[in-house]
């Protein structure tokens, strides 16, 4: 059942037919997919959802595609982990990790948004898809396009680290390195998106792309036993994830799938790129663009397209936003790994580190349910922690040497 009604301007409310476009022709406001939810009355039940395969597409009626997905049919439904060890470390009573560091197929939540964007691109008849990215998005577009038999272009800054180029290049995508300052590279990508007849996932098909983030929210609510947590902490780059998880909660409430739990949204950024967090702290809704300087590269968006809307969601839900230093990011990555066995990328360190700071400041209550959204895998940002991990202790191939070491650690040989 397709309940998509239109694209609607978030600013002036003008509606447009479903098409690959993203900006209101009247006021330049961003367009968003809107739905006729009443068509799902009596149909879209918990039982129906639970009867479906464990992928993000079990909520397909609330994602903007016609029929079945053609790209990324296996994506999503990542674990929600009760983080008992981290609860003790942070002094909170009910903490969960939504672990998209194991999202299929490229180990980040971008697989959710990309599979929706590319499925929609196929519906629109595009043969070539594209993105501009420094990491996770590039890999996800390249991999999902390869699996779907689509041509793909990935635009990157020309001096991007080799490891990150590899993460997209292995999938046979056409990688274009662009020389120039960030703003020039950004502008070129925008111009290319407007000039060529491609589906540029976060430009002309952005309204559909962004909706894919809602699946993370749906999963959290189902995995909690059909309820929303009291508090959700999300990393913020463009700010889109924050707004879409909030939208997912409102939709489940409207559809009668959960009760309104008064969920508050919290945003996390690195201090070196924190335009949204700063706006929340300053009590303004104007986002002042910044030049990003942080190890959390996947969050390094200095002029965030959805910053205003993320700010609004945070304020409307009585949440908060926080930012932390790069050193705190590394500490939090280690804390998550050592307590829960989850190796998150730098953005995960940002999320946990900001949550820790908000718990300590009292912004996040210790006695209510909290979900932390971990959105990418630490294997992709190893350089951030390479100097912070425990180095191996080197011994000769001698049992005597090991016995001495074990004794120093407090172990005795079994009898």
């Amino acid at each position, binding site marked *: 059942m397709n309940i998509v009604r239109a694209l609607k301007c978030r*600013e002036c409310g003008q509606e447009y037919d479903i098409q690959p476009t*993203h*900006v209101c022709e*009247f*006021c*330049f*406001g961003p367009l968003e997919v809107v739905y006729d939810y009443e068509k799902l009355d009596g149909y879209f039940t918990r039982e129906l959802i639970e009867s479906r395969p464990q992928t993000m597409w079990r909520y397909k009626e609330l994602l903007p595609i016609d029929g079945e997905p053609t790209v990324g049919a296996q994506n999503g439904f990542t674990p929600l982990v009760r983080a008992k060890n981290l609860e003790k470390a942070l002094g909170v009573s009910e903490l969960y990790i939504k672990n998209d560091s194991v999202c299929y197929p490229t180990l980040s939540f*971008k697989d959710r948004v990309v599979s929706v964007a590319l499925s929609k691109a196929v519906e629109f008849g595009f043969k070539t898809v594209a*993105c*501009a*990215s*420094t*990491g*996770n*998005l590039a890999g996800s577009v390249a991999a999902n396009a390869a699996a779907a038999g689509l041509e793909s272009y990935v*635009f990157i*800054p020309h001096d991007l680290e080799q490891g990150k180029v590899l993460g997209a290049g292995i999938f046979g995508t056409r990688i274009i390195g662009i020389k120039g300052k*960030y*703003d020039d*590279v*950004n*502008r070129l*990508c*925008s*111009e290319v*998106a407007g000039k060529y007849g491609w589906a*540029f996932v*976060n*430009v002309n098909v*952005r309204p559909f792309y962004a909706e894919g983030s809602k699946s993370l929210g749906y999963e959290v609510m189902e995995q909690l036993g059909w309820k929303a947590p009291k508090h959700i902490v999300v990393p913020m*780059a*463009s700010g889109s994830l924050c707004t879409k998880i909030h939208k997912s909660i409102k939709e489940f409430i409207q559809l009668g799938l959960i009760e309104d739990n008064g969920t508050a949204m919290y945003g996390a950024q690195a201090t070196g790129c924190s335009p949204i967090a700063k706006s929340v702290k300053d009590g*303004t809704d*104007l986002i*002042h*663009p910044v030049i990003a300087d942080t190890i959390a*590269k*996947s*969050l*390094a*968006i*200095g*002029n*965030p*397209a959805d910053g205003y809307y993320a700010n609004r969601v945070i304020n409307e839900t009585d949440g908060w936003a926080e930012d932390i230093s790069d050193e705190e990011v590394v500490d939090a990555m280690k804390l998550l790994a050592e307590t829960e066995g989850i190796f998150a990328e730098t*953005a995960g360190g940002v999320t946990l580190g900001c949550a820790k700071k908000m718990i300590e400041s009292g912004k996040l209550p210790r006695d209510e349910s909290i979900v932390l959204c971990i959105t990418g895998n630490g294997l992709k940002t190893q350089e951030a922690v390479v100097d912070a991990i425990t180095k191996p202790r080197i011994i000769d191939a001698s049992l005597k040497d090991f016995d001495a070491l074990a004794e120093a650690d407090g172990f005795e040989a079994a009898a």
Partner: protein
Amino acid sequence: MRLRVYLTFDESTVREPLIWKLAKEFDVVTNIRTAEVKDHMGLVGLEIDGEDAVVESATEWLAEQGVKVAPIEQDVIEG
């Protein structure tokens, strides 16, 4: 070409009539589509219409005045 941009004015430029000056300096048609101005900053969605080279020069001039000129998509390079 008809270029669509967001202009961000900071504290030092928000009180200056820069869009008026732009139309005086360059042979372009400016069309404000959205605007929000506060004490310390302003945000304007602007359409700039004219010959390609003139529009290019006009946007460079705005940047030289201390205005951030961004595509209406804002940052499209994601992590």
